[in-house]
């Protein structure tokens, strides 16, 4: 099968079956039966995914080119009008710029803090205990986290009380209602929630690394930082990339936390595209416009995923 750009098949007993020899009638019958069995085995998954996920994606894209709303019918194609409306809509701009902050922060903060903690805690005496502390928030539902953190930032909540007690009362703030602080405040809650998971995933990646290169470098007298920078980090890069992709997409589509903490909607200071999409669709009935925002979010997710795949290949080729 050399030379033919075949689909990347898994290494398999198929190696023998793929030799271009004439098949007997019996072998052909086995293959037909195998194909049929394979389809049957995949049928439940295929049906679930295509009916409830893939068909909706197509439908959503179609809706985004119509003028469909609670007040107007579906049968009117308007081209890119919904996307143009998004660009000119101040709520969209506010949501988009907050979402950009979310993307950057959820890319940088959990991964950076998680990586620092993973490297620091590894092999430490209290590793298990500290790991559990950082992982605990992950177990609490995001809705509950939003409810709890709402009071952390409330006017007479945790942060303001501490500020007053240390004599810095003049810095007290309505954290969730100021444009400059609402999104950062929510991101801190998000970081609190996710960093533990990122840390655990990176620790799993670290544990899987081969020991020899690190020991060799230690023997050669390399410093801790040099070892981390030139040996550990490059080998850990594939895991870092996977974790980064997961946390970016989870970050910029975060709904529950922002919804619960930003109770008095519409509150443009904490608006994100995910919230804007929900509100426009399910509270205002602007189906087509909501669908267009969803398409834009899907586009961003697709770009992030593609970037990850490309970077992953580059990193892996550099390791080999």
């Amino acid at each position, binding site marked *: 099968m050399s030379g033919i750009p075949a689909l990347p098949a898994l290494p398999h007993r198929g190696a023998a079956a793929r030799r271009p020899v004439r098949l007997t009638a019996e072998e052909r019958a086995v293959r037909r039966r195998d194909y049929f069995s394979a389809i049957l085995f995949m049928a439940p998954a*295929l049906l679930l995914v295509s009916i409830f996920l893939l068909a909706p994606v197509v439908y959503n894209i179609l809706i985004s080119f119509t003028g469909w709303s609670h007040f107007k019918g579906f049968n009117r194609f308007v081209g890119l009008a919904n996307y143009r409306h998004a660009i000119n809509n101040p709520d969209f701009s506010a949501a988009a710029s907050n979402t950009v902050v979310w993307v950057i922060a959820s890319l940088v903060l959990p991964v950076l803090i998680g990586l620092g903690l993973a490297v620091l805690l590894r092999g430490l005496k209290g590793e298990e205990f500290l790991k559990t502390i*950082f992982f605990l928030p992950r177990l*609490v*539902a995001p809705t509950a986290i939003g*409810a*709890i953190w709402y009071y952390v930032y409330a006017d007479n*909540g945790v942060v303001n009380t501490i500020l007053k007690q240390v004599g810095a009362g003049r810095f007290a703030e309505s954290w969730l209602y100021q444009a400059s602080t609402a999104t950062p405040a929510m991101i801190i809650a998000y970081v609190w929630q996710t960093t533990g998971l990122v840390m655990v995933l990176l620790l799993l990646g670290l544990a899987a690394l081969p020991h020899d290169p690190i020991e060799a470098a230690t023997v050669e007298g390399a410093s801790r930082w040099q070892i981390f920078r030139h040996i550990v980090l490059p080998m850990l890069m594939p895991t870092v990339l*996977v974790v980064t992709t997961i946390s970016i997409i989870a970050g910029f589509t975060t709904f529950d936390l922002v919804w619960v903490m930003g109770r008095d909607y519409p509150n443009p200071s904490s608006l994100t595209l995910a919230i804007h999409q929900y509100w426009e669709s399910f509270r205002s009935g602007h189906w087509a416009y909501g669908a267009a925002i*969803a398409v834009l*979010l899907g586009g961003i997710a697709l770009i992030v995923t593609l970037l990850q795949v490309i970077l992953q290949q580059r990193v892996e080729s550099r390791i080999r």
Partner: protein
Amino acid sequence: MSVAGSSRRFALAGAATLAVLWLVPFYYAVSTICKSTAQYLSGTPLSLPPSLSSLPGNIEAAWAQTQMGQGMLNSLGYGVLGAGGAVLAAASAAYALARIVFPARTTWFMVIFAGTVFPFQIYLIPLFQGYARFGLLNTRLGLLMAYMAICVPFPTLVLRNHMGQIPRDLDEAARMDGCSHFRIFRSIILPNSTGPLIALFLLQFTWIWNDLIFSMVLTTETAQRSVMNALMVFQGNYAGTTPNLVITASVLASLPTVAVFLLLRRYFMQGLSLSVHA
């Protein structure tokens, strides 16, 4: 990497400080559920509760006002059936993708896996409108099917990788003896996959239990809504007036998944390690 030094000690102190900060919200939640509304509103948020005597009353009130029992029962159903069905469907698909030779396997796999690429927002309007048309809106079946579908693609990826690594001698021999694919799947492959199956079930169960947005979009009535939806509605109405009850309800709604994690920690960790190495 065992070089000790002042920089390391400095970093450790940083990590310890961070750990203490990490616990503040937990301390806040635990101390708040022990205060009556009057105690909470008259004191400072981080003050110690005078006694534990308010706790039972808080639990009772939060439970009743949130209609938590109904929500938990619904979420239990969504979680067990949704995650169970999804993992089974994924295992069956993974068997075909990893153990049967047939044309265009990668393409078939990509069709299923495509379900992980999109953010949830892109499903909401079509599901809502489709459900409205076919009478699935505000039904338990409708929400359950959406959860089940969302939980299929990722386990398919993980189980395909896992099943690809099970030695082939076993089922080759079984095939020689004339065993059907179904028998091989049930008696050889599934028993050899119990670890990942349990781990994936737990991950998906937790996700369904914690989900808010699908329940908000597809169910609006008390009878069908999930526990997080019930909590969200309660928080929306009473966050200003009875903070202690809102916090109590939040803790109650989170306890089941925390308990499951603590009991089945090993499987959770396995599930996490599967998700990085997938």
